[in-house]
C-alpha cells in the first residue's frame, strides 16, 4: 500500500527537531565566540593563502617564465588547477539545482554550503587563466567593449572566449541563486539578533522579508525557474564549454567528442567528493550530526559511485576509440599515457577514480565516516590527476619526436595551488562563521517530509470537500488517513 510506504520512511533530519530548534541549532555557531578549532583552521588557511599571494605576486612581477612550462608543454599545472576547481564547483549546482528538480528532499541540509563551495571554487578557478595571461591587469581585454583600438573586438569563435562567458555567467548565476536562497534565513537571523553590526547587515540584506504567503508564492516560482530552467542547463553547459577548450583543438588525446559528457560527469564526481569531505568535517566540528545524517552521506556516496562509473566508462571509451580509430597519433597518445614516462600519473588517476570508489558498493563502507572521508580525498587527488593527465600527457609528446619534452612544476606553481586551497578554505571558514550553513527555511519545510506522500503517491487533495470536512474535524488535513488507490 502506498500509504504504508511513506509511513515507514525515516525522517530526513534526526533528533525530532521542531522548526524552532532548527533556528536555534543553525544560528548557534553565528552567535557565540568562535571555537579554538575554527581559529586554528583559519590560521592554517590564511597561511596557505598568504603563501599563494606571495607566489602569485612574484610570478606577476617576474613573468610566467617562473613556471615549469616549455615550448612543447604550454599548458600544464595552471590549467589543470583551473579545470579542477571548476569541477569542484559543479557539485554545488548539482545539489541545489538538479537534485531540486529531481525532488530529492535530502538536499536541503547540504545545498547552502555546497552552493557556497561552488562560489569559492569558481573564484579559485578564475585566478588561473587570469594569471596565465601574463599581464593580468589587462584581463578586461577579454570583454567585448567598445574601444579606440580599431575597435578591436574579441574573437567569438574561440572556445577560450566561450569560457569567459560561461564562467562569468556561472559565477553570477550561482551567486544570485545562493543569495535568493539566503534571503528568508537572513530575515530569520535579523529577527533573532537584537542589535549590533551583524543584525544591521542581516537587516540590510534580508530586503525587508516578512514571510508573506504572496511573496513565498512568487519566491518559490523564482526558485524553481532559477533551478530548473537556468541553473541545470547552465551547469551542464559550463563544463562542456570548458571541455571545448580541448576538444576543438587538433591535439591527439584532446580532440574527442566524448569530452563534454565526460567532463561534466567528472566535475560532478570531484565536486561531490569535495562536498563530502567538507560536510564530514563540518558535521564533526560544528555538531550538525542531526542535519547531516548517515542517510545524507549514504546518498552522496552513491552519487560518487555513480559518477565514478561514468568516468570509468569514459576512460574505457576514450581508450577504445583511440585504439580503434586507425589514427597512429591518437593511438600513440593513449599508449603513451598508460605506458609512457608519465604513466604513474595515469595509473594514479585510474586507481583513485575507478578503484577506490568501488568500496561504496558496500553499505557498511558508505556508513563508516573515516572510510568515506579518506576515499573522498583519494577521489579529489585522482580528479586533479585526471586533468593533469589529459593536459600534460597529451602535450608532452606531440607529432614530432624532436619537440618532445618533459614537465616538472616549479615551487611557484605548487605554491599557487596551495594558495588557491588557502583561498577556498578561508572563504569557507568565514562563511561558516557569519552565515547560516544550513538552509533553515528549506530544512523546516522537510522536517515532516517522511510523514507525507511523495510526489506521485496518493496525495490528499485539499479540495472543497476536504475543506468542508476540516470545518467539522479538528484533525489536521494532511495527516488524515485516506484510501489508497492500490
Amino acid at each position, binding site marked *: 500500500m502506498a500509504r504504508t510506504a511513506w509511513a515507514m520512511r525515516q525522517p530526513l533530519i534526526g533528533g525530532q527537531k521542531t522548526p524552532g530548534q532548527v*533556528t536555534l541549532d543553525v544560528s548557534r555557531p553565528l552567535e557565540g565566540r568562535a571555537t579554538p578549532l575554527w581559529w586554528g583552521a583559519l590560521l592554517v588557511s590564511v597561511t596557505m593563502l598568504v603563501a599563494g599571494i606571495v607566489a602569485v605576486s612574484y610570478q606577476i612581477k617576474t613573468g610566467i617564465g617562473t613556471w615549469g612550462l616549455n615550448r612543447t608543454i604550454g599548458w600544464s599545472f595552471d590549467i589543470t588547477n583551473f579545470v579542477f576547481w571548476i569541477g569542484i564547483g559543479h557539485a554545488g549546482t548539482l545539489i541545489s539545482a538538479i537534485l531540486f528538480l529531481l525532488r530529492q528532499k535530502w538536499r536541503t541540509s547540504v545545498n547552502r554550503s555546497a552552493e557556497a563551495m561552488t562560489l569559492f571554487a569558481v573564484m579559485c578557478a578564475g585566478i588561473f587563466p587570469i594569471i596565465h595571461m601574463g599581464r593580468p591587469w589587462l584581463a578586461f581585454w577579454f570583454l567585448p567593449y567598445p574601444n579606440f583600438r580599431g575597435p578591436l573586438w574579441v574573437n567569438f569563435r574561440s572556445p577560450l572566449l566561450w569560457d569567459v562567458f560561461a564562467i562569468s555567467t556561472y559565477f553570477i548565476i550561482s551567486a544570485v541563486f545562493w543569495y535568493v536562497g539566503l534571503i528568508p534565513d537572513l530575515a530569520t537571523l535579523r529577527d533573532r539578533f537584537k542589535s549590533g553590526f551583524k543584525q544591521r547587515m542581516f537587516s540590510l540584506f534580508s530586503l525587508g*522579508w516578512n*514571510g508573506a504567503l504572496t511573496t513565498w508564492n512568487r519566491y518559490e516560482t523564482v526558485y524553481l*525557474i532559477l533551478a530548473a530552467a537556468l541553473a541545470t542547463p547552465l551547469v551542464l553547459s559550463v563544463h562542456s564549454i570548458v571541455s571545448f577548450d580541448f576538444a576543438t583543438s587538433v591535439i591527439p588525446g584532446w580532440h574527442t567528442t566524448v569530452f563534454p559528457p565526460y567532463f561534466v560527469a567528472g566535475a560532478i564526481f570531484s565536486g561531490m567528493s569535495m562536498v563530502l569531505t567538507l560536510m564530514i568535517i563540518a558535521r564533526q566540528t560544528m555538531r550538525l550530526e542531526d542535519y547531516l545524517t548517515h542517510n545524507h552521506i549514504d546518498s552522496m556516496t552513491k552519487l560518487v559511485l555513480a559518477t565514478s562509473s561514468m568516468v570509468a566508462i569514459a576512460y574505457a571509451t576514450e581508450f577504445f576509440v583511440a585504439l580503434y580509430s586507425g589514427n597512429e597519433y591518437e593511438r600513440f597518445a593513449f599508449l603513451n599515457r598508460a605506458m609512457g614516462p608519465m604513466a604513474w600519473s595515469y595509473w594514479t588517476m585510474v586507481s583513485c577514480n575507478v578503484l577506490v570508489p568501488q568500496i561504496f558498493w558496500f553499505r557498511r563502507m558508505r556508513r563508516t565516516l573515516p572510510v568515506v572521508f579518506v576515499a573522498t580525498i583519494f577521489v579529489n587527488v585522482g580528479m586533479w590527476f585526471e586533468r593533469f593527465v589529459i593536459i600534460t600527457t597529451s602535450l608532452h609528446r606531440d607529432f614530432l619526436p624532436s619537440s618532445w619534452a618533459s614537465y616538472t612544476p616549479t615551487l611557484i606553481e605548487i605554491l599557487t595551488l596551495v594558495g588557491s586551497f588557502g583561498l577556498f578554505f578561508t572563504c569557507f571558514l568565514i562563511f561558516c562563521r557569519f552565515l547560516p550553513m544550513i538552509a533553515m527555511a528549506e530544512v523546516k519545510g522537510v522536517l515532516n517530509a517522511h510523514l507525507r506522500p511523495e510526489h506521485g503517491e496518493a496525495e490528499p487533495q485539499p479540495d472543497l470537500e476536504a475543506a468542508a470536512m476540516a470545518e467539522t474535524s479538528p484533525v489536521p488535513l494532511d495527516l488524515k488517513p485516506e484510501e489508497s488507490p492500490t
Partner: protein
Amino acid sequence: MSTRQLQSIFPDEDSVHGALLALRKAGFIIQEVYAPYAVHGLDRAAGLRRSRIGFVTVAAAAVGSISFYYFQDWVSAMSWPLNIGGKPYSSAPAWIPVVFEVGVLTAGLATVLALFVRSGLYPGKKPLLVDPRVTDDRFALMMDIADAGFDVDEARSICRRHGAESVKEVLTPARRKKPRQPEIQSLEVWR
C-alpha cells in the same frame, strides 16, 4: 489611518492549512498568511495563482540571446571583419555557446529583479512584521475586520478549532494597495 485586523497565530503548518481552508469555505476573505518557510500547497489553499514571473524569464532570455547573437555577428562580420582560419565572417554555429550563456545570465538577473520589484523587496527595507516569530516557527493568518459583514466570533472559533495559539485584534498600518480578494472558485484553476 490604520486597519483593524484579526490576527491568529498557529504553531504548525497543518493547523494553519486546515484553518485557511475552513475559513475560505465559510466565506471569509483572508488578507495574508505569514509563514517561516514555504509550505507545500498552502498557496494553492489560499487561492493564489501561480506566479507569472516565468514570462519575465522567457522575455529576458529571448532579448538577451537574440540581441547577443546579432552583436556577435556585427562584431565579427561588420564592425571589424577578421579572417580567422578561413572561417566565414558570420560563423553562426560558433555564436551559440555565448548566446546560450548570455541568455541564461539575462534571464536569471531579470527573474530575480522581477521578484524583488513585484514583492517590494529592496536593501535596507524595514520589514512589516505581524509577529517577530513568523520568521522563526509560527504562522500568522490575517483577516480584515473593517467589513461590516465580518463575523469576528465565527472567525475566532474556526481558528481556535484548528489549533490557533492566539487570536487577537490588532491595528496595522493601512496598506497602499487594495487588499487582494481571492475567489474561492479559483481553488482548482491551476494544476
